[in-house]
Each structure stands twice: as C-alpha cells, then as structure tokens.
C-alpha cells in the first residue's frame, strides 16, 4: 500500500522535472507578484515590512490556484486517470500521493522562496522564520483542498475559473491564520494558537480530501 503511494509521488515528480516549464511558471508568477507590489504601493520600508507577510501569503495562494489545473488534467486527457480509477489499490491513496507531489513541486519551492522575501522586505529573523513555518504548514492544505476543485471541474470548459471559485472560500481561513501568525509575531504576541489551527486544517484536509477527491474523480470520468 505504501509502495503505490511512493510510486505515484515519484512518477509525478519525475514528470514535473521533465516538464519544468509548468513548475517554473508557478514560481515565476509568485516572484513577480511579490516583487512588483512595492512599485504600486510605494517603497516605504516600514509599510512594506507590515504588508510583506500578507503579500507573500496572497501571492502563494494565487500561485497555488494557478497550478491547480495540471493536477489531474494531463492524466485525464491521456487516459492515465482511467487506469488509476481501475487500480486494485485504494484510489484515495493515489490521490493523496498526487497532492503530495503537487505540494513538493509547488508549495515547497514557494516556501523556500519566502526565506529570500523575508530578507528583501527586511523582516526580522523571528518573523521570517514564522512566515516560512506558516507556509510550510499552510501550502500542503492549499494543495489538498485545491485537488477537490481540480477534480470536480475536470473536463469542463472554463474549469480552471470554476475551480478557483470553488476553492477560494476554503483557502481564506488558511490565509487569515497564516498571515495572521506573522503579524502576531511582529506585535509580540504568541503564535501557538495560529500554528495549532493551521495544523488542524492540515490534518483535517489530509484525512478528508483524498476521500472527497476520489468520489469527485469517479463522477468526472463518467
């Protein structure tokens, strides 16, 4: 059972490595949104320091949405998804593996990039650490919840727009607590509660979404 999980993760990462454009596209979008914002907002360091966590979080969220379509669309188009539905292994495990691979190829690089943005926006060390840590816990939730939207809108015309409409409301709590934790650090408050909530989101999503996505995929493939 564990072997199918590892195999699918390996396969999706291999595909991501060989189709670098898709992954780089997401990262490029993230970097551009964050770096271009100061041109519009003004370059006052104190102001930027205040909005940086929220800005990075919003950009990460949009980048995650941008990368959703490729979660299942290619497998759907070439028939691999059919074979996944016909696997003797549990479909929810395959789905969890795909969401994991999606996070490893988008969420993880975004999280790593946030370290650089911490320096660029002159956040103190503790705030940067908190930003990176919230993204590390929060971005897997984005991948998991996003997979529901991607599965439900599979094969629909304009599916990408619909998927983002579906998942955006579910992303908002993650955004609020993720960005909120960093602001709390800046005002000297404790962040434990934020991390407990983000962790709860993650566990909740990891348990429930693979199951929901499996059902959605069976419906979409009909």
């Amino acid at each position, binding site marked *: 059972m564990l*072997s*199918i999980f590892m*195999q*699918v993760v390996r*396969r999706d990462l*291999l*595909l991501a490595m*060989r*189709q670098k454009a898709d992954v780089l596209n997401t990262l490029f979008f993230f970097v551009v949104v964050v770096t271009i914002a100061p041109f519009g907002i003004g370059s006052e360091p104190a102001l930027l320091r205040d909005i940086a966590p929220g800005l990075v979080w919003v950009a990460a969220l949009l980048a995650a949405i941008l990368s959703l379509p490729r979660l299942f669309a*290619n497998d759907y*188009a*070439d*028939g*691999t998804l*059919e*074979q*996944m*539905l*016909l*696997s*003797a*292994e549990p479909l929810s495990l*395959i789905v969890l593996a795909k969401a994991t691979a999606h996070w490893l190829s988008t969420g993880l690089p975004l999280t790593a990039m946030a370290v650089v943005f911490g320096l660029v926006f002159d956040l103190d060390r503790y705030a940067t650490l908190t930003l990176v840590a919230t993204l590390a816990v929060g971005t897997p939730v984005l991948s998991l919840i996003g997979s529901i939207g991607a599965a439900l809108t599979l094969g629909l015309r304009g599916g990408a727009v619909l998927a983002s409409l579906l998942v955006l409301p579910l992303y908002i709590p993650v955004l609020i607590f993720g960005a909120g934790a960093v602001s709390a650090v800046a005002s000297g408050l404790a962040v434990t509660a934020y991390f407990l909530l983000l962790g709860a989101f993650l566990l909740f999503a990891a348990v429930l979404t693979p199951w929901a996505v499996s059902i959605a995929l069976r419906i979409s*493939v*009909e």
Partner: protein
Amino acid sequence: MLDAIHLSCERGDRRLFAGLDFAVAPGSLLRVAGSNGTGKTSLLRILCGLLEPTAGEVRWRGQDIRRTRDEYLRDLVYIGHLNGVKDELTVRENLQIAQAIAGRRLDDATARRSLEAVGIGHVEHTMARFLSQGQRRRIALARLFATPDAPLWILDEPFTALDVRGVAALSQLISSHVVHGNTVVLVTHQDVAIEVQRQQDVELNGGPGSIAEAAC
C-alpha cells in the same frame, strides 16, 4: 464468469441500449459489434465499472462488481481508446508506471520480455514523445503481455494503429489467453480472425441488444 443483467445505458437524452443480458463463461471471447455511436465503448466502460449503467448490473463470479470492486479490479485489465502513455517518460518507464498504478508487480525480465513481444524492445529507453501512434499503442498493449495471469481482459479497439504483424501477434495473444481459461471482451471494427473455442457476439444496434452464440 462475467454476467450482464438487464443493462441499460443512456447518454445525454439518448438511449444507447436497454435490457442487455449476456453471460460470458471462462475460456470464451465476447465480441461486441455495432456501428459508430451505438454504445460499444459505453458498454465496455460499464463492464469495467467506470460508468454507472442507467439500470441493471454487472456481475463477476456471481457478485455485483460495485460491491466487490477491489477483487474485481485485481482480476481486470482494461485497455481503452486512450493509451495512458506519457510523452515525458521512456517506453520502459511508461510500462513500469502503468503496472505500478494498476497495483501489479513488474520485474525487469518481464518488462523486457513484454516490450520485446509487442515489438518495441529496441526503443525501450526512448521518450514516448518520439514514437509513432502505432508504437504508442504498443506500449499500452505491452501491459497485456506483462499481465497474462489476469482472468479478464476488456479491450476497446486494441488493433487500431497496429501493422499487420502487430495485429497477428495480438490476436494470437488473445486466443492463447482465452484458451487458458480466461475471459476476453473485445470491441473491434477490423475483421480480425481470433481462433478460440467459444465465441459470443453482442450486436448493438440502437434497439435491444441481440446476442448470437457461435462455436468455431
């Protein structure tokens, strides 16, 4: 033993077939015929469990496949219209990954033997993107050679894009699979001779399906 009990299928507002009954015994071949748009692919997808029939049920070894999905899928190999081949993977990786996704073990020797058997052994380390349509079809078909122990094969137009020798090799594989006591369900427009002891035909023609039993 694969049984269809009163299967009906509607797609959109159109009724493709209704009240379709047949029973395929182990060691026999079921050929599904009918002109375009009569629901052959839909029937195969229903038999796989990918599509819910509007009415009726499919039984495998006497059990509704919806209830015993895991055991059923362990017994089944389905090759559909789509090859499930990834352009960015090599021929060999494609086969290995397809088998892994199906939940089947594949050792190196079997992988090589299967690819040789479908005639793409010489390109096993080539990216699938550089292959012809027929060669890509062969990657999907290699799964059949790698899974001779699955008691049920469901094949949707397996001969498309194959050359004469490929067709001959595949029809021989199918007949030997059937002779060994397994079941094969097949849709094909080509008039390929497959030598089997017992063959059944289902003709879909928009009305209630008619069934002809033939012994060759």
